[in-house]
């Protein structure tokens, strides 16, 4: 590890962190991390899940206080008791996870904690809404400042978070995976904003799991591993392979999925599926969508945020309200699932987006989380047996390569990638024939991603049909045999592996 020797501290350093250490009950999140960020540069921070990136940024922005170490902002030693102090010192942060008050308006959210007062000290909504309007314009985001944050979709919510940070016009801006919930188009807009900020001389710390992004934007790159500073290097001097190598501390097999998979019988047919959406001008979430899925095939569904990919999968899985029309056939049998349990019984499994909210059971341990959907197999004489359960989950834990101290470790102690593997393992136990994956690698590091890709490929070769959505086109291009494109809830194009390119897909997706 290469901590910076004191003498080389350049005068134009915006941030100097020395020997930062942070412990949480059970884990050392950061261990003696030193880091220097130059004024006006865009400094990318890379690392696996749980490497300590967010923790370091939270310390920089006053959310956490370090157990040891010092922090110097613009040459002045700083110690933040709270986010307020950080803001005063000119540090603003866009957090990894959304932090919006859904019942409040967009404007109220943007100025939360820094409300504008009018005459008599009463709150001045008009001013804040006007200001918010300007900020959103700058982000090229069409959202009414008066709209309630909860009514927005994920992408717009993320943009509101960004507007929140911009409204501080801070000299140092931390972005913790700002694009993890954004699609290419939205990411592009964000990048334009970033360039504008840099022209103003804003220093930006940028965290992302998307390598191409990092290499497009960053001046310098710092790599963290297991809470330790591995190295800081100029982008020009590094290659993505090196960086990922440093991140995971090993070489990642450049797995190739291109030897063709045997294509089996038709498992799933969707014909003229239309899902109404009453209280919305568009009137539908999905309109006249038709597709089919064969055994041993991976079909990718591309689309901008809000295109209706989740709705498509949810409708197939029986989650959506019963109002939809059209036809869904499983093995040629028309089905109308009113509850996920029916879909499970028919051999369908769905790995949902938003792991934390829709996938994890924080109070159950790893075994409990994995075995949940196939507990019947863990019972003897009607009662659950610990031994049987352990035996049951051992398989999927091995197959998916979950790194866990043991089957009875707390799931919350695992890194995001491993949690996701547990959830996939949960569904593999049900031995599904159709696997619906809704953005399975969101916020998961490259190492874990590669392993997941390999896993998905293996499953497919076993004759499983996979319907996959992703907010990352490269991912779709790597994995899918065919790629369908949704735009505004309508099916606008279908490509096979040969004809698909990022450019053509984006064209179709933007309608």
């Amino acid at each position, binding site marked *: 590890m290469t901590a910076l020797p004191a003498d080389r501290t350049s005068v134009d350093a915006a941030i100097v962190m020395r020997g930062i250490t942070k412990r949480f009950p059970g884990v050392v999140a950061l261990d003696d991390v030193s880091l220097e960020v130059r004024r006006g540069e865009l400094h990318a921070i890379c690392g696996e899940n749980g490497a300590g990136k967010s923790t370091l940024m939270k310390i920089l922005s006053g959310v956490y206080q370090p157990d040891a170490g010092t922090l110097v902002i613009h040459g002045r030693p700083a110690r933040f008791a709270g986010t307020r102090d950080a803001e005063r010192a000119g540090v603003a942060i866009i957090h990894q996870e959304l932090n919006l*008050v859904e*019942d*409040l308006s967009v404007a109220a959210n943007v100025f*939360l*904690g820094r409300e504008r007062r009018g005459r008599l000290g*009463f709150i001045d909504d008009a001013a804040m809404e006007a200001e918010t309007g300007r900020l959103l314009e700058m982000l090229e985001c069409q959202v009414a400042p008066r709209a309630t944050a909860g009514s927005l979709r994920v992408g717009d919510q993320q943009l509101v978070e960004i507007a929140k940070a911009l409204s501080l016009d801070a000299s140092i801006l931390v972005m913790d995976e700002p694009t993890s919930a954004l699609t290419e188009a939205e990411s592009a807009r964000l990048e334009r904003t970033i360039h504008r900020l840099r022209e103003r001389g804003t220093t930006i710390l940028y965290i992302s799991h998307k390598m191409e992004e990092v290499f497009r934007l960053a001046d310098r790159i710092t790599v963290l591993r297991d809470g330790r500073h591995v190295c800081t290097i100029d982008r020009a001097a590094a290659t993505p392979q090196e960086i990922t190598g440093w991140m995971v501390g090993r070489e990642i097999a450049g797995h190739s999925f291109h030897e063709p998979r045997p294509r089996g019988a038709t498992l799933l047919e969707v014909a003229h599926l239309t899902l109404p959406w009453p209280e919305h001008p568009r009137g539908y979430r999905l309109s006249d969508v038709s597709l089919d899925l064969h055994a041993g095939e991976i079909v990718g569904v591309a689309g901008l945020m809000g295109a209706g990919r989740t709705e498509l999968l949810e409708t197939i899985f029986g989650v959506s309200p*019963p109002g939809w029309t059209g*036809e869904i056939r499983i093995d040629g049998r*028309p089905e*109308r699932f009113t509850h996920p349990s029916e879909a499970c019984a028919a051999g369908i499994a769905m790995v949902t987006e938003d792991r934390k909210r829709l996938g994890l059971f924080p109070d159950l341990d790893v075994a409990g989380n994995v075995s949940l959907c196939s507990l019947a197999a863990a019972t003897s004489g009607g009662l659950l047996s610990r031994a049987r359960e352990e035996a049951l989950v051992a398989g999927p834990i091995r197959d998916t390569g979950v790194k866990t101290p043991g089957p009875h470790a707390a799931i919350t102690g695992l890194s995001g990638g491993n949690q996701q593997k547990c959830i996939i393992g949960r569904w593999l136990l049900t031995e599904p024939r159709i696997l619906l994956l809704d953005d399975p690698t969101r916020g998961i590091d490259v190492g874990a991603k590669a392993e997941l890709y390999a896993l998905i490929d293996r499953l497919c070769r076993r004759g499983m049909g996979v319907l996959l959505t992703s907010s990352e086109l490269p991912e779709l291009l790597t994995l899918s045999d065919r790629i369908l494109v949704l735009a505004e809830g309508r099916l606008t194009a279908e490509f096979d592996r040969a004809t698909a390119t990022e450019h053509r897909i984006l064209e179709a997706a933007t309608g």
Partner: protein
Amino acid sequence: MAAFLPPSAGGFLLRRSEWALLAAIVAAVALTAVVDANHSYWFQPLASLRDIARSTAMLGIFALGAAVVIIAGGIDLSAGSMIALSTTVCGSTMLALAPAEMVGFKPVGGAVVAAGCLASLLAGFLVGTLHTWLITAVRLPPFIATLATLVGLRSLARALATSTTAALLPTKNSQINVYDPMFKVVRDNVWIPVAVFGALAFITWLLLTRTVLGRHIHALGGNEQAARLAGIRTDNVKWFAYCYAAMTAALAGLFYVANESVAAPANQARGHELNAIAAAVVGGCSLSGGVGTVPGTVLGTIFLRVVIDAVSKVIKTESEIYEGLIVGVVVVLAVTFSQVGQMAKGGRRLLPGALGLCAIPALALLAGGVVAMTASPRTGLAAGIAAAVCLGALKAWEARQAATVRPA
């Protein structure tokens, strides 16, 4: 509030659901005026109005406090006990300052009365502080913290009453009579509590909709994590909310003393905290926090009191037996009503599957039983059967709906 509303919920001055509530109130009054055998609402409007106004004001004062806590994402179960403590503190203080007058039922003088009232409000502040401390520093869930004080404060009040009277009166007493003319004035002039309620409602409305603190209360209730990350001192906001609740309860306690001319901690205002919470919820406050308005809470309070009064007017004898039942049903209906809209849209079924099947006898039995007991067994039986049939039909219809959606 308007600023926070999704357009759908919006409306002129009040939200949709609040207009509905208003309509319900009017309907209830009209219905009572007609059904009531001696049409008291029609012939003695003033008397009835005075009664409803008084009881509404006395409940509303601490219902506002309850609403603030609920909007801030908490809950306060201790209001009833806080009221008992407030009455006792007020009584004890006055007893301590002017024992002779208190025993002799003579006026104790403005200063002493003021002292008593201030002592009560101070007690309210301290209790609110205690709650906040338990919740933020000790990290108890609000439900538990205020559950503990629900039991604790009443007992404290009783102990206080006994020991002060034992020390200052010839005989130990479990309650303290308050006979000062000032309290009598308050008792005789209904407009006083009503005015206080109105003023408090206005202040609370300003606070919640037009001040930064109010915005922070909504934020805290809506998403505590986000509020903290936005640099809001959530602990202080909570502190305010719980003190506001406790002090409004203390204030209400003073009106209890005036209205009942006694501080009787043993069972004064016992269980009234639930009325307050019910009023807030009927008024549209969400127990998950972040949502709620003052107009709603006020309307909710009026609605509750009107219904209770209507019951006692319509059912002439032993109305108190049926009151709870009717209040319960009405609360459910009121809260349901505010969602009927999206229920219809969402294509939700009211009697789904086996649960629906078992719910039918439960509901029919309930309906039939109530009618049987209020009217005659035969009508009750009829009503029960009728209910069962209707529900059965609904169930069948819903089932067919679900089926017809399937392809032939």
